[in-house]
């Protein structure tokens, strides 16, 4: 299969401070690719370079086989972009902005605008500046998809969307993907990426530290567990494979677990517990305890 995005040793410095160093990865045609990393790791820098909003210090990137910087306007015809922060022009109504956006593409986008606005439950007659953050984000989503792009680039797309809308949003992405669109989305929430992406690149401190199939990542799911037991147990009860960041506070044991969840459930079942909390650890925690060793 052809690669929609090819990034080769991309490096960007802002003056002396690091943006990204030697970032290389490819996004295949037709896949949903996740780009994850903690805040400030270089996700936006990479994405903004792909979009020719900023210029690389060295290295190169291409989209649809064309150079990102030299052929930016040509590439843009087939790319839809949703920035993490949503914009508005003073006094513009939603439909004005969407029509303005559509006017850049030489195709009729009316039907698609109606369809998307309907699905996202977006009132097109309101002024954008009066909208809530979540609704502004919806304007951004419609704006990014109205020309049925071949590549959709999303920077922290679910930020500010309520869970119900997130659901609709992911369905939308999957539909666009079925239509044939390639999707690149960045996020700092692992769980979110795991839901829809087929592959992920993990970036930390400006460097790609891992490129994985999501199926592999899912095998090693991460859970933050907190267990309160009835009796005080020996300290090494939970010192088993896959447990890290173990903290013991009286009868409360908390740790991150990665591995077969059945093993852990069986372990817990053998104990007399009072309470149990299971959470998605955030990416920072996972990095801290797993990926930090690999760098």
């Amino acid at each position, binding site marked *: 299969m052809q690669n929609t995005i090819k990034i080769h040793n991309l490096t960007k410095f802002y003056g002396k401070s690091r943006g990204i160093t030697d970032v290389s990865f490819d996004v295949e045609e037709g896949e949903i690719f996740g780009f994850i990393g903690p805040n400030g790791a270089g996700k936006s820098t990479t994405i903004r370079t792909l979009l020719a909003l900023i210029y690389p210090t060295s290295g190169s990137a291409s989209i649809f086989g064309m150079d990102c910087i030299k052929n930016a306007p040509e590439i*843009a*015809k087939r790319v839809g972009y949703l920035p993490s922060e949503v914009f*508005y022009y003073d006094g513009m109504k939603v439909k004005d902005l969407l029509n303005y956006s559509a006017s850049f593409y030489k195709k009729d986008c009316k039907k698609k605008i109606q369809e998307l606005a309907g699905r996202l439950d977006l009132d097109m007659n309101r002024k954008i500046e009066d909208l809530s953050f979540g609704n502004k984000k919806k304007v951004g989503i419609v704006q990014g998809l109205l020309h049925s792009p071949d590549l959709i680039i999303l920077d922290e797309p679910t930020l500010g969307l309520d869970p119900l809308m997130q659901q609709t949003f992911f369905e939308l992405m999957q539909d666009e993907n079925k239509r044939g669109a390639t999707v690149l989305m960045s996020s700092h929430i692992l769980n979110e990426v795991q839901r829809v992406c087929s592959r992920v690149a993990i970036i930390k401190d400006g460097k790609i530290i891992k490129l994985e199939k999501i199926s592999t990542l899912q095998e090693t799911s991460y859970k933050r567990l907190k267990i309160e037991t009835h009796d005080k147990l020996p300290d090494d009860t939970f010192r088993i494979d896959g447990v890290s960041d173990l903290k013991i506070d009286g009868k409360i044991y908390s740790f991150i677990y990665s591995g077969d969840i059945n093993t852990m459930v069986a372990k817990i079942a053998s104990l007399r517990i009072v309470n149990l909390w299971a959470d998605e650890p955030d990416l920072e925690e996972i990095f801290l305890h797993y990926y930090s060793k690999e760098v």
Partner: protein
Amino acid sequence: MNVFRQECKMNFRTTLLWILVLCSLGAVFMAFFPIIQRDMKTFLKLLDNFPPAMKALMGIVTESFSTPLGYYSFAFTFVTLSGAIQAMNLGVGIVSKETRDKTADFLMTKPISRTGILHAKLAASVVLLGITGIVYSVFMGIILRSYSVSDFDLKKYALECLAFFILQIIFFAIGLLVSVFARKIKAVLPVSLGIVFFLYAISAFAVTSASDKLRFLTPFQYFKPDYIIKNGQYEISYLVTGLCIIIICVLASYIWFRRKDVHSV
């Protein structure tokens, strides 16, 4: 074309407001003309006591002060100052507002080159300033004519009007360059007022200085109404300087804008 239309639309109201300001300013000044004309002798005597520098700065030339066009030169000083602020505002704002309103990410990821964006913005600005100049000039022309049925020199008046337009373009170009070079401009007005008044202050030095060289430093001194009225033409060296400033500023803006990093907000 769509960006051009959009820019015109977005800046139209402000332009309308400026046209109103300029016209009222000119009209108010001219409204005093009949009163002053009635007591011209005493008024000229009074003016003789003014320091020459102050007169020069305000565009007052005693010899022509009694004619409508000569008196208008005095009004013109203030109209130019306002016009300069309008043009500078437009120049500083037209590109920087995209980063301020977070719309840069929107506009600059569309299938349009940066050169194309700047073309459209530039064209829209020139059109808006052109409309300002035409409306204002026609309006003032009618007033001036009503005062001087016989001796209204259309050519000289047209030259003054064109000078106003060129001056606005100079200020626009300077503003554009400043905004393109600046990483981010938080508010347009302080920047543009700062530059305009700075150049106006230089203007004050220029008229008091014995040498003419200082006049090159400030566009305010490129088109002296009294020279235009007396000679029916521009001072070529200053006209050329002005045009050079426009060309350099615009070219530099293009070059810089094409390779500028657009930072997220």
